[in-house]
């Protein structure tokens, strides 16, 4: 195991610990959010996002971090996004967090893990066909929201964080 892998393991352990503490890895929580009954996973995810967003962009101004994001390819982002969602609605676990579900004893996630390995293999098999027919359609390149709107990124961050906090308040008011 090299240093990079040890970093990965430790980072994953911290993340897995926090995921389990907030009880967000289990099927009931994931599906309850999709059924608008309990927004715990959204609260967790959006809290991580707003803290990460402010921190990453702050350190990026000093050149301490390098941004690494994916280009917009509408056919892939939308088609793949919907397909992922349909599968997620059946499985009730996410690729990253289902290991955490297994960690707290929810062993039906083993079927999900197995299915995902098969799904990845299937994708590799069909990749040449997809390259010909689907991939790369409507490739708009590396776009960020500030570029798209044409404003300073901190303005976008302030609006985003304010919107999320308002959403949190609404969740709490509604008891979600």
């Amino acid at each position, binding site marked *: 195991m090299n240093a990079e892998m040890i970093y*990965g*393991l430790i980072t*994953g*352990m*911290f*993340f*897995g*610990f*926090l995921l*389990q*503490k*907030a009880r967000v890895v289990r099927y009931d929580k994931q*599906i*309850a959010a*999709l*059924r608008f009954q*309990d927004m715990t996973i959204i*609260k967790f995810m959006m*809290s*991580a*996002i707003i*803290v*990460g967003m402010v*921190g*990453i*962009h702050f*350190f990026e101004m000093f050149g301490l971090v390098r941004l*690494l*994001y994916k280009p*917009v*390819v509408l056919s892939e*982002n939308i088609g*793949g*996004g*919907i*397909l*992922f*969602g*349909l599968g997620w609605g059946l*499985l009730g676990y996410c*690729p*990253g967090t289902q290991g955490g579900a*297994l*960690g707290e*004893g*929810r*062993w039906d996630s083993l*079927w*999900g893990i197995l*299915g*995902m*390995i*098969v*799904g*990845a293999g299937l*994708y*590799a098999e069909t*990749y040449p066909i997809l390259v010909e027919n689907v991939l790369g359609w409507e490739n708009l390149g590396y776009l*960020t*929201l500030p570029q798209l709107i044409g404003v300073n990124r901190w303005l976008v961050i302030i609006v985003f964080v304010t919107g999320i906090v308002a959403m949190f308040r609404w969740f709490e008011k509604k008891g979600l």
Partner: protein
Amino acid sequence: MEVNRKEEGAWSPYVAGGLSGLVIIVSVLSAGKFFGASTTFVRSAGMLGKYFGPERVEQLEYFIRYLPRFDWQFLFVVGIFLGSLLSALTSDSFKWQGVPDMWAERFGTNPALRGIVAFIGGIVAMFGARLAGGCPSGHGLSGIIQLAASGLIAMVFFFVGGIIMTRLVYHGGNR
């Protein structure tokens, strides 16, 4: 049914989520790594595929792009399992369960039915994640944190698909 009751020993999702945001910042600062998970399943498929048909794996372009080997993200995904296990065992919230409560209320406690649906769901979800270019970790957390338009678009459609499917699965309520 009461889904919303506070569970004993659970941390506030705002606190645990916010702390996860700090973990992301530290990870990017120290190792240059944003969170992601779905590539690990490609590498796993390649590793397993090598046992059954090593020539096939070597032929496939996708496994050349994502070589079947261990890397930061693979260990990250393993770490999530270990961290959750540690947290569950030390807080008495570990529960060996093959059929989730909500599922059982609607479809009964047959683990085979749950297993089949979970397996199919896993196949579809991963195919979709690879097509989309990432999962809720890579596109959702990492993408949106960086204000990437691709992350936001993918995340919206993850939820669109998920909401459609849960509507179908739980059509007409729990009973």
